[in-house]
């Protein structure tokens, strides 16, 4: 395997609040190889989006976020830069040019007072120095690339004239306009209906195959993960609880939380032999308050396999071989050293 395009090590983000320091992301590490997709999976509030915003350095300054750790990004020029330590001006040159991001809400992600062509053109003019006419022509080519019909006409339309799926395509065109090497997709299909979801995901796949970009895919949809990710990191309460390539993860989840998540899927219940499942499986309890985390494993209060030592201390991420690791005392460590 090539050297990773993005290598995140011990990333932590915490926010001071009136109730104390909230650790939204704690000790998160993962890699994304060139041309591959790493999915960050977790429920709401598990720290997925904060992770992506921290990597893009887009957290609001007024939030006073405290960030530690490293995120080594291999630039197109072959340098390795730490995204978390880069001066703001250099970071700005990377954003949109080598690192791009698409958001969950295509309805509000576009500026309502400019045509979609102007918005795509802005990024190209900024990073590639093209003039207005050339940038607009490029914008039209981008719209064609993301399979928007009648691109020549659409390029002059305003966001409100497009449907949600069209707008998400425009967002992808916008993100892809400068040929980024890493695309961070923060729940890009959550706000879309299912048929459009499938089209958008297929489009992202095709673009990835054509350009060789890496994708950090943030989602809570395990079905999407199964079909579109190469590697998966499952997050719970701000930490990675299990990390594995996609097939082994779905075939044999190691962490009780991952097992619970997979048991929640309707198809899984059926496959497990219940001919007509009356009720879907649900993980009992709810996520502990970020202000008062349990002393040991964050998942322990909800875990059916919890033991006494689960309550003692947060277990480390234990490497279990074949590039997998899980943060649970129940897993058997491989003979390699402890995972990062």
């Amino acid at each position: 395997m090539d050297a990773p395009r993005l290598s995140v090590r011990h990333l932590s983000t915490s926010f001071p609040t009136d109730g104390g320091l909230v650790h939204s992301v704690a000790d998160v590490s993962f890699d994304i190889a060139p041309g591959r997709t790493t999915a960050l999976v977790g429920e709401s509030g598990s720290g997925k989006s904060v992770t992506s915003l921290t990597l893009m350095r887009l957290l609001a300054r007024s939030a006073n976020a405290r960030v530690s750790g490293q995120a080594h990004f291999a630039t197109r020029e072959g340098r390795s830069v730490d995204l978390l330590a880069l001066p703001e001006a250099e970071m700005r040159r990377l954003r949109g040019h080598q690192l791009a991001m698409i958001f969950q809400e295509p309805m509000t992600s576009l500026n309502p007072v400019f045509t979609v062509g102007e918005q795509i053109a802005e990024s190209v003019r900024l990073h590639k120095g093209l003039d207005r006419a050339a940038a607009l022509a490029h914008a039209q080519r981008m719209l064609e690339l993301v399979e928007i019909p009648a691109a020549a006409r659409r390029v002059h339309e305003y966001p409100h004239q497009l449907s949600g799926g069209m707008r998400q395509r425009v967002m992808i065109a916008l993100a892809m306009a400068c040929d980024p090497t890493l695309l961070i997709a923060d729940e890009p299909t959550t706000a879309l209906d299912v048929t459009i979801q499938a089209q958008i995901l297929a489009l992202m796949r095709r673009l990835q195959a054509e350009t060789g970009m890496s994708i950090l895919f943030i989602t809570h949809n395990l079905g999407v993960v199964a079909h579109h990710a190469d590697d998966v990191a499952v997050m719970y309460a701000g930490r990675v609880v299990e990390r594995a390539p996609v097939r082994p993860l779905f075939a044999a989840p190691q962490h009780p939380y991952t097992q619970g998540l997979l048991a929640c899927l309707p198809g899984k219940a059926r496959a497990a032999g219940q001919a007509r499942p009356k009720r879907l499986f649900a993980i009992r309890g709810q996520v502990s308050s970020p202000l008062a985390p349990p002393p040991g494993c964050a998942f322990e209060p909800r875990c059916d396999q919890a033991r006494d030592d689960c309550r003692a201390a947060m277990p480390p991420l234990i490497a279990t071989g074949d590039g997998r690791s899980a943060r649970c005392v129940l897993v058997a460590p491989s003979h390699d050293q402890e995972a990062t």
Partner: protein
Amino acid sequence: MKLPPVLRALLHRRIVMLAALVLAAIVVLALGAPWFASIDPNDTAVLQRLKGPSAEHLLGTDELGRDLYSRIVHGARYSLAIAGLTALGATLAGTLLGLVAGFFRRLDAPLMRIVDAMMSFPDILLAIALVAILGASLANVVFALVLVYTPRVARVVRASTLVVRELLFVEAVRALGVRTSRILWRHVLPNLLSPILVQVSFIFAYAILAEAGLSFLGVGVPPDIPTWGTMVAGGQQYADRAFWVVLFPGLAIILTALSLQLLGDGVRDLLDPKLKKAA
């Protein structure tokens, strides 16, 4: 000839076109005042005082026998200049203040407390105090009125900025590597155009009336400068005997303010892509 789409759409709206024509006519009259009204607006003729409209005096004469038509035409220069400069100055200053206060949360509280303090004075009192200190002149009246109206614009722009800055596209363009100053100028400001345009047309009309109030109280422009406001203010005690003394300058104010507001609304609708009819 191919006109830009905005102009072409403007031509299709009769009322907006009419308003634009009226405004254009008023501006032309004001600019060419000496040619359109040859009688000196300050020529007094006591024997001719408070005469009704006639062939000699188209709109009649005021309490000192001065020709009303001539005073309105010449007064248009000053009234429009005062109102226009006030609207321009207050809008520029208020937009800048509101934008900065709304976008940079750290500057919000300090800037807005200053604005609140300015707003806590009654409008006309603040203007009177300023003109009394600085001295009565055209420039000082404009300066005082700009100070009075800036806080209003700042408040409106700040409130709208607070809404726009939270929209996801601001984060999205930041994720594209656009610098903050450009985000403010290119992405936030154009989204505030509607509320700003509404404020401009309001302030323009208010400034004409405020200048009248100031002049009436003796802290406005010097008496030898005819303005619509001073004419209404000075003529009101004769209104029962000679209605034209207040009617015609009053009509001039209404017509100008109304036209401007209609034009402002029309332009706002045309610039707002959501209100645009699907072409």
